[in-house]
């Protein structure tokens, strides 16, 4: 068991490292010269200024030393030159400083992350709850018109691309008819009501768009569990139907649902790009999107965070699963 966990963790770390190398390589081998873009942003750009910028950003380096520098920063911190004679001491974990805003990426990440976290966590809970409820109800009323209606409508809703739902909701519910307050992120510590009202529509849209998948999965899992012998035993010994359904059925059916939810949530936490762009929420998805194609430290940071989250979620789910379900063979 321990050997299995260690092997998996080592593999996971390797995956993350290679992912970050990949980003670095893409950027360095890419044609967009970040220095030229930044240089032109400031207006008059001369050859010398661009060369100076290239040097100060470390873009005149090779890929390998540049990556080495980056990796060193993550673990022990590093000193970054911000111009002729100017230095910035970036302590570990250092993800560099933004080429554009000159702020420390770690600080920016701390700044942006609460928004993504708010969207993903509450949105995730909304669709998990909504999906499971609908799924259990459909399973309970299996074969009736209600069941067919639920299954049919969930099929249709899940067939519509997510960003269209979000875009239409934003265009019409917020802009056209003002049914929802203007969306955006406001820190919960400042004003919880504003925080909730700004994210209300994104949560609902996430919930509506993602719950059908859970409803269908939950229903399938529930139906399968309800045909097991131990459920029949529970019914046979005279337990009330609802008690059988929730106490015995749900407990067994929920494991695969939670598994999928873990992986989904990790993907959400890695950046809700569409949600943040459409609803104008200042999270890491939008941040990463806006950093392309110039701001390497930001791109690298968002990809790294995403990869770590996804890999960690996979790891945790796999290990938990091998504990929960002894039938899973460790190989």
């Amino acid at each position, binding site marked *: *068991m321990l*050997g*299995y966990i*260690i*092997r998996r963790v*080592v593999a996971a770390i390797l995956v993350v490292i290679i992912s970050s190398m990949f980003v670095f390589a893409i950027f360095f081998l890419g044609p967009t010269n970040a220095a030229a873009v930044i240089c032109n942003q400031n207006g008059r750009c001369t050859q010398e200024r661009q060369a100076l910028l290239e040097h100060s950003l470390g873009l005149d380096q090779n890929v390998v030393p540049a990556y080495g520098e980056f990796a060193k920063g993550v673990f022990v911190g590093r000193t970054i030159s911000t111009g002729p004679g100017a230095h910035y001491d970036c302590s570990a974990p250092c993800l560099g400083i933004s080429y554009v805003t000159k702020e420390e990426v770690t600080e920016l990440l701390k700044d942006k992350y609460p928004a993504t976290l708010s969207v993903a966590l509450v949105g995730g809970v909304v669709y998990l709850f909504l999906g499971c409820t609908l799924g259990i109800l459909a399973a309970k009323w299996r074969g009736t018109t209600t069941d067919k209606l639920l299954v049919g409508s969930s099929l249709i809703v899940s067939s519509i691309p997510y960003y269209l739902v979000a875009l239409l909701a934003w265009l019409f519910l917020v802009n056209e008819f003002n049914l929802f307050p203007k969306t955006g992120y406001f820190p919960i510590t400042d004003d919880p009501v504003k925080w909730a009202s700004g994210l209300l529509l994104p949560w609902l849209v996430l919930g509506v768009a993602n719950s059908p998948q859970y409803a269908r999965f939950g229903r399938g899992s529930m139906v399968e569990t309800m045909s097991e012998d131990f459920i029949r035993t529970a019914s046979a010994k005279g337990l009330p139907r609802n008690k059988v359904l929730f106490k015995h059925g749900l407990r067994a059916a929920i494991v695969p649902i939670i598994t999928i939810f873990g992986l989904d949530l990790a993907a959400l936490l890695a950046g809700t790009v569409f949600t943040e762009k459409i609803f104008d929420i200042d999270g890491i998805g939008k941040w990463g999107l806006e950093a392309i194609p110039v701001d390497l430290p930001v791109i690298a940071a968002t990809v790294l965070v995403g990869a770590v989250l996804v890999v960690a979620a996979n790891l945790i789910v796999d290990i938990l699963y091998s504990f929960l379900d002894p039938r899973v063979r*460790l190989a």
Partner: protein
Amino acid sequence: MSASHETVADTTAEPAAPESSGIPLLEVKDLVKHFPVKSSGVIRRTIGQVQAVDGVSFTVDEGSSLGLVGESGCGKTTTGRVVTRLYEPTAGTMMFDGTEIGQLSSKQMMPYRREIQLIFQDPYSSLNPRHTVGTIVGTPMLVHKTVAKNKIIPRVQELLETVGLNPEHYNRYPSEFSGGQRQRIGIARALALNPKLIVADEPVSALDVSIQAQVINLLQDLQRQFNIAFLFIAHDLAIVRHFCPRIAVMYLGKIVEMGDRDTIYNTPHHPYTQALLSSAPDVKQAAIGGRRERIRLVGDVPSPVNPPSGCRFRTRCWKAQDICANEEPPLYQVGGREVACHFAEPLQVIAAGEGDIATQVGQDDQSPTLEVS
């Protein structure tokens, strides 16, 4: 039917080995097959060997049959897989028709692939569900180019007829046949290349009892018709006795007793053989209300990863002495059979019942037919 069979054989390039009546078709010597066991630690190193087959020697004569019996897990299936080179032997030699085939590369092995065929236990998983019967039976001929492409279908139909299926069914899928019919398809596939040796791995144990007899009789007819040698692997003692003039009993990767059918069945010398035979139900005794003394073996079969020292059967043997733990018994020649036991002798207790076991199946050695009641 048989005429065209000969024509087909003529078009094939025979392996270089000369035909000689004195040399057995297959001679297996000290065959060993070990499977590595990996640790579950951080670095998965090999921590042991499953000694599935550990020094097995036997011969199969041309057109004859050797029965390989034993409990599940004794290595008989592994032996069959090694002989057909599905598994690479760990050690030992396998002479087929005078050629050592144990170490041949897959390319060098190709001519011998034609000569050695395998019939599987499970008629459901041994036929590709996505192929028609025609494709399944025709593939060997297509791969080895033994038959011109446009002659494959007539030849398939001929083979289907030989194994007792409707030749018009060559376009059907395996799912449309019953278990017994599927096994016949498997047999037709094995026959497609006119092999000299067929390894039959529990060919009837997955079938209904009523079908078993039909398939066994079919195999026997085919053996006589085409002069095919069989390595017949089974755990059903009655069927092996019916089919094979020579029998080898395996226990934990080793042959413990080998000899002619009647010698083994009438006067088993190895304690394990005696226990095995006593465990088979005896219809005759039951019919007259009598009961045969059964030998009950105590304990489980030891792990093949860490087999007992000396005689592998000693942990469950009622005759075990110190010598059994210290000295591995070689195959002694006792009473016309080979037996690996320091205390080989006929069993006294069931001597009275032996005749009855013998009468369990048809006694006519010329043309035995299995009767099913």
